[in-house]
């Protein structure tokens, strides 16, 4: 039984996955994306696919990067094995629009997507005014993390607007992703950023307010694997974008004292969400809890398993991934 990780040697993802696999008495072959070829994988292997590592922080390259990755995922067609996550499902959840549409069809509570297309800052303002929208998240349709994400508010009566984003204007008026959140109120800069994002394919979502804890808004990253919640980290922020690498902070889940009923609702929500993606056994599901305690899915991350709070403690997520894959492999062998 060969265990294969397609990823990048020397990253935390590969190091800690290897550690988990070895502690269970197995070894893992790491194939770097740059060297990857379908012929490198034996039929019937246990296969985990990590996302490629990108050094490029330029947001305008996101589309190209994503297209390359989708092409690479397609090359796994015809490689049979026991996948942690089927490449076709990784590709499916990489597309935020398709993902949300699927969840909506299955009546999964989600942060609402705005279906209307807009192509400019001005059109966005008109949309907000017409529909009386409190705020909008604009995200690249493909991609993960907070690259190219901005939260936007517009007040038609006062002609005031504000965005919260980690984007910044770089050389040659190109936008790039920084690791720091900022608030921008200058209309010219806001217009430039929004027009830049709207040139590409985006998903627009209504800004739904999150519950708060000690002055921080928070949401949950739930790592759900093989039918159970394996880890929850609450991500607190003074801004609307809670990704932990943006100077936000992890809140100990126990501190939130989530009522049992809410935890059960979250479990059910995750179970129903994963049921929409056959072949996806591990996902980082971002869940918003409203101030009144209603959970809804923000997005599904097919490779959302890199959680430092677990890595440097029990390394439970990767351990359970390997256990899950071995069990699945056993079931496949019996058939």
């Amino acid at each position: 039984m060969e265990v294969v990780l397609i990823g990048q040697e020397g990253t935390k993802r590969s190091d800690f996955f290897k550690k988990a696999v070895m502690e269970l008495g197995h070894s893992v072959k790491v194939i770097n994306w740059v060297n990857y070829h379908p012929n490198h994988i034996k039929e019937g292997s246990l296969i985990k696919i990590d996302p490629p590592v990108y050094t490029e922080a330029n947001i305008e390259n996101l589309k190209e990067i994503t297209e390359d990755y989708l092409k690479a995922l397609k090359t796994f067609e015809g490689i049979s094995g026991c996948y942690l996550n089927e490449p076709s499902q990784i590709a499916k959840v990489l597309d935020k629009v398709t993902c949300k549409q699927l969840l909506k069809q299955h009546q999964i509570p989600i942060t609402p997507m705005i279906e209307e297309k807009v192509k400019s800052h001005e059109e966005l303002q008109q949309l907000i005014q017409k529909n009386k929208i409190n705020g909008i998240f604009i995200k690249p349709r493909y991609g993960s993390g907070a690259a190219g994400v901005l939260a936007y508010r517009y007040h038609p009566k006062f002609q005031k607007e504000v965005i919260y984003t980690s984007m910044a204007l770089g050389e040659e008026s190109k936008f790039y992703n920084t690791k720091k959140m900022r608030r921008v109120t200058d209309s010219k800069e806001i217009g430039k950023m929004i027009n830049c994002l709207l040139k590409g394919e985006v998903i627009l979502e209504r800004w739904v307010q999150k519950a708060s804890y000690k002055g921080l808004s928070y949401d949950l990253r739930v790592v759900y694997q093989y039918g159970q919640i394996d880890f929850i980290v609450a991500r607190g922020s003074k801004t609307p974008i809670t990704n932990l690498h943006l100077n936000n902070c992890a809140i100990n889940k126990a501190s939130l004292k989530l009522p049992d009923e809410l935890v059960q609702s979250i479990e059910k929500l995750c179970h129903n969400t994963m049921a929409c993606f056959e072949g996806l056994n591990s996902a980082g599901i971002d869940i918003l809890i409203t101030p009144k305690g209603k959970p809804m899915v923000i997005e599904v991350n097919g490779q959302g398993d890199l959680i430092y709070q677990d890595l440097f403690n029990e390394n439970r997520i990767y351990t359970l991934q390997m256990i899950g894959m071995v069990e699945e492999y056993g079931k496949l062998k019996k058939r």
Partner: protein
Amino acid sequence: MNSKKYVYDYDDYEDGSKDSATLAVEILEDPERMTLEEIVVGCWGESYDNSVQAILDMFVEHKEKFSHIKSLFIGDMDYEECEVSWIEQGDYTKLWDALPNLEHMTIKGSQNLTLGNVCHKNLKSLEIICGGLPKTVLEEIAVSNLPNLEKLNLYIGIEDYGFDGDVEDIKKIVANPSFKKLKYLGLGDSEIQDDIVGAVIESSLVEQLDVLDFSNGTLSDKGGSVLLENKDRISHLKMLDLHYHFLSDKMMNELEKLGITIDLSEQEENDKEYGNYPMLTE
């Protein structure tokens, strides 16, 4: 204190049918109302698009049902629900007479805020949290009659978000003769924080205070120096709150030697590109 918060979240007002008028009715018809000592009013729907006036008017119209209330917080919402500077506040003129047992009033947001003639014999604390407090409101506070007021905490803010006064307005507030029982004075979150320190430190009001709060503003070494130069005037303080500031390390060290309890947390870096801003603006 038995307290209850009334609030709408996204699900409540998504279809546009809920606003401050409907929340006013819900508060009025709540069977728990008589057991409460404190009422907290949170997001009332699209709080940037409809004012809180319906709720304030409801308290006045049915004052006999709320005369037992000791504490009110109007506008308890964070930026997730509504940018603070976008909260549509209201006219509080008639509220003071309507709620004779009120001891604590907290208001968040200053858009279209009017306090009116503020005369209240039982009010112990008044706090206004906003990104810019208009001159008209500062004047109303300057001429208010609040003989039992123990705490006054005002977020002064910046010009871009409604502060159109100046340091003279601050001087008038600290000269209010009715503030005989004031123990906590907070005049913070200001872009003219250094000037405010200068105006306040000279006033006789400082002598009776336990707590002086200049937090959340753009306090720099200029304001810090004024505090050092007047150390005898503040040596009696139980607390000098300067958290969120732009003081240098050297100035912080000097202030720590004052021998009074001082909060110097949240030292901010000078922003050479965009300039220094108070903690709460938008």
